[in-house]
């Protein structure tokens, strides 16, 4: 199992009138071929910004200020916009955006929108293109008459399936899903999660699955990466995070404790005191130290590096090292 995606020291900062917001601040990780990497964190922790950075599409005033992104053995940092658009985006690495259901143009039929994407990238006869659209629609469990329908005629779950099909039909290696199930009802949510699992097997895809919900992540991801205030707090396997031993970083521990479990009758739900820091002026030292109940002297002075504590398990915490 090789690394399909490798990110080194990636930084994306927003240059606002109030100052520099360090939304993604020096993060390094990798994605193995055929695995799903879950990215969790609260709103504003930089998870969506990180995803957008992987496609080199920062929203102004954001700018990638450093780092390397290696997709399938190729460093994409040096590539210009035209090459990115023609050869990388959707060809090698594609994305299902947050609220993807609203990404469809209301005035075009589903078939026309999908055709447009396909013909932009591939020299294809119309019939051949249509064949491929039909093939991918059946992969995501939709009937062919969806092609002639307009977005408003479809339910939320169906629209999400269309967007997933569109993200897949150029046969990318890596698919980034940003909160693909958040706006959907639980039953539909479970169906979409099942669909993604089936497609992963069938098409040998690698996924980055972004969500704020640790419960969803437990059912989807092989490895979990927890982000806090623009930094990686912890990366571990599904078993390491959700198993008996549990996570190691105090933030992950508390976040997991605050996640309600349906089949447990708890009297008191745990929560984390305070709020995430302002990324214009992140606190010195560990970014979590102001809310951390296990804080030590060193935490407010020096930033803890992300270190491998056991095999596959990386934690950025002074307490875990001592």
């Amino acid at each position, binding site marked *: 199992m090789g690394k399909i995606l490798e990110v080194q020291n990636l930084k994306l900062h927003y240059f606002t009138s109030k100052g520099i917001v360090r939304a993604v601040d020096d993060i390094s990780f990798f994605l193995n071929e055929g695995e799903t990497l879950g990215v969790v964190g*609260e*709103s504003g922790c930089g998870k969506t910004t990180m995803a957008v950075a992987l496609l080199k599409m920062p929203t102004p005033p954001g700018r990638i200020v450093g780092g390397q992104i290696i997709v399938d053995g190729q460093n994409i940092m040096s590539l210009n916009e035209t090459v990115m658009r023609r050869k990388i985006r959707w060809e090698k690495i594609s994305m299902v955006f947050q609220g993807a259901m609203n990404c469809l143009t209301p005035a075009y039929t589903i078939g026309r929108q999908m055709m447009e994407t396909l013909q932009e990238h591939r020299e294809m006869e119309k019939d051949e293109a249509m064949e491929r659209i039909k093939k991918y629609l059946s992969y995501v469990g939709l009937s062919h008459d969806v092609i002639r329908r307009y977005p408003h005629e479809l339910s939320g779950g169906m629209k999400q399936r269309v967007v997933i099909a569109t993200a897949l039909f150029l046969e990318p290696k890596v698919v980034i899903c940003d909160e693909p199930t958040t706006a959907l009802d639980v*039953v539909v949510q479970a169906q979409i999660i099942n669909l993604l699992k089936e497609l992963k097997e069938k098409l040998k895809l690698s996924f980055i699955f972004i969500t704020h919900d640790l419960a969803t992540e*437990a059912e989807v*991801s092989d490895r979990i990466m927890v982000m806090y205030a623009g930094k990686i707090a912890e990366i571990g396997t599904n*078993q390491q995070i*959700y198993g008996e031993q549990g996570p190691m970083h105090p933030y992950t521990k508390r976040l997991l404790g605050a996640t*309600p479990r*349906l089949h447990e009758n708890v009297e008191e739900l745990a929560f984390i005191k305070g*709020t995430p820091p302002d990324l214009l002026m992140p606190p010195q030292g560990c970014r979590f130290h102001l809310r951390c109940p296990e804080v030590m002297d060193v935490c407010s002075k020096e930033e803890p590096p992300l270190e491998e504590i056991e095999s596959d398990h990386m934690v950025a915490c002074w307490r875990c090292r001592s």
Partner: protein
Amino acid sequence: MKASHVIDKTDYIMELQNIQKWFPVRKQGLKEIFTAQRSWVKAVDGVSFGIRRGEIFGLVGESGCGKTTTGKLIMKLEEPTAGKMTLDGNDVTHISRQELERYRRNVQMVFQDPYASMNPRFKIRDVLAEPLIIHKMGKDRTEREVAIKKALEEVRLIPPEDFMERFPHMLSGGQRQRAATARSLILSPKIIVADEPVSMIDLSTRAEILHTMRAVQRDLQLTYLYITHDLSTARYFTDRIAVMYLGKIVEMGDPNSVIDHPQHPYTQALIAAVCEPIAGKVNRIKEVPIKGEIPSAANIPQGCRFHPRCVFAQESCWTQPEPELVESGEEHMVACSLWKEIREGKITKS
């Protein structure tokens, strides 16, 4: 906290009997215009339940099931098409404007989005003073000030003098939702309707808000109607829950009993679909015992409205009239004609 809290099971503060809310659909065909044919979206289609004094009643369901419309009916933001509503024994199904003003003092609301529900140019002091001025409570400024301070203390925004001078943007999401709770508390209402009060709030602070809301509810003996799509928080937060599907309640009862031993096939599917943070589920495809997609509320199926999606459905489910809520255990009601057979495993899934 739950155990020490005693609720009189026969003392209903609010009762809804067969409440309906139908919205007309305008069609543009000539036939509809000339024949005056009308079709309806049956958002709430015959809902009956009672809220007991001092309890938190949860209304759960998927989007479009009518839970928010039910909340609006209780708030009197919508007029019911049919049925009867009582508050403290008084009929409030249709009331006059003057009565409505008094009614609103008794029934207050906490909105979903704490960012959008406050005037950004108002200080928290003004946000909380507004309901007092509207309802002409408190003689003068100083008297209102005392009430505002008390309300802020009740929701643990301490010191109140400090928070009164702040603008909404100077508060965190959690503090804002507490200020919103204080605003609805300040009129000492009988019922507070909270429609998804924490769905916009981050997980790490969500529990904190629910915790404060419940602590205040217990301290002041308030009654809440908690509307949500999230079964997990409903279990933690409520004393009783009702599960809605397509405008009707399909199951109602003690949250532990409903969630651990669901009897309606819809509730069973809903619970099976919920994700849980437990290891070892990655490589499994989750089985959700439900078929197809939710039908439109403009076109409700004959017989039991869940039968086209039900994995247990028998012929009787669509030929017989719709099942009503029946007692199926202590503090547990279900609207399914086959609940006994399903529980005993006599019907196999199709």
